[in-house]
């Protein structure tokens, strides 16, 4: 436990560079406004606080449902309860996008299984291809 408290100090804030980058995306140089360093540091603290707030609220909600894992819907309800309901559509859209990505990734992984061939068979086919390629290469220049 004590170990955690010591080492976590640095980990428990957001990376400065990332935060700075996002700030510049929100306030581009053309806006004529610069975000001072102390404001950025304060903003980072606020962000961490926001994460803590949302996650503890979502945690309470999930506990009430006797769920052990905090799911997206708990976050959604936490946002709603805490007055950030405007964020919900975008958050859900991102979550949905992620789920889609997971699906397609699974499909890719199972491509080998979908081929219906055993590993040995696939290996044999590969060797076959190598061999034919080598032959072509040797024949080619002449």
């Amino acid at each position, binding site marked *: 436990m004590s170990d955690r408290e010591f080492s976590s100090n640095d980990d428990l804030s957001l990376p400065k560079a990332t935060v700075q980058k996002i700030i510049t995306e929100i306030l581009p140089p*053309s806006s*004529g406004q610069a975000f001072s360093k*102390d404001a950025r540091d304060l*903003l980072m603290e606020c962000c961490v606080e926001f*994460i803590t707030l*949302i996650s503890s609220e979502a945690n309470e909600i999930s506990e009430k449902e006797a769920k052990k894992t905090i799911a997206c819907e708990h976050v959604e309800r936490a946002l709603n309860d805490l007055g950030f309901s405007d964020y919900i559509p975008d958050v859900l859209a991102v979550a949905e996008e992620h789920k889609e990505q997971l699906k397609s990734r699974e499909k890719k992984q199972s491509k080998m299984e979908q081929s219906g061939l055993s590993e040995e068979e696939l290996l044999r086919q590969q060797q076959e291809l190598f061999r034919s390629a080598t032959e072509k290469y040797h024949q080619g220049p002449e």
Partner: protein
Amino acid sequence: MTDQDNSYRPQSPDFSTFHSPISPVPPSYPLAHRASYDASPFFTPQYQNQPPPPPPLSRVPQQYVPPPSFPDSDLDPDMARRSSRLARAAEVAPMAPMAPLPSMAPMAPLEPLPPMPPVAPMPEAKYIEPVMAEEPPKPMIPTAIEVRTKFPVARIKRIMQADEDVGKVAQVTPIAVSKALELFMISLVTKAAKEAKDRNSKRVTASHLKQAVVKDEVLDFLADIIAKVPDQPASRKHDDDGSDENAPPKRKRGGRRPKDESD
């Protein structure tokens, strides 16, 4: 006024390149006048910083066309209009049928180019847009800001689980929280920027951020954090830092203020 200036700004280099064909035109020619007006270096420096909005190019070539080697200046705008219609109809090479007119050549690439590249497959629908609505990028209202940089999801998960009460977290959850955080940041930064603007400050300082937080009830949970920020912009001292550095990790429930819960 500024709109016009803006719209012409990105065009200035184009005009300079086109100057030579125009030169034979007598200075009394009204449209040639305009062109040189626009190309004048007088306005250029200030506006170069601004992100060039897709300028209403379709209009520019129309003013442009008439000068070179054309006795009948009335014809040309007509041509331009017709050619744009053609472009819509034919999708490609709108100028081909009009080829006999040499003066159209410089205009031909100008007109279809801006809308074409992004909309190559179906120019019909979007081609009209730049003509009718001059400022499609304007709807960049604060809430519509898009942030491309993403937070590291692993870090967010760790921050979430720093709270000992928080147990397992689904895989999507940190991603959802990350998006919420992004929106939260956008709203905070824009609000703070507005505070700064209202005070005629170009620098958004911590106290501007504080003002923004104080104004919004939803942000009450940040009261703890902003309490240490002085109201004056001059906050270079780090007197509090020593004690504060220890504070954040110990805070378990951020939402509560110590005032409310002090025993």
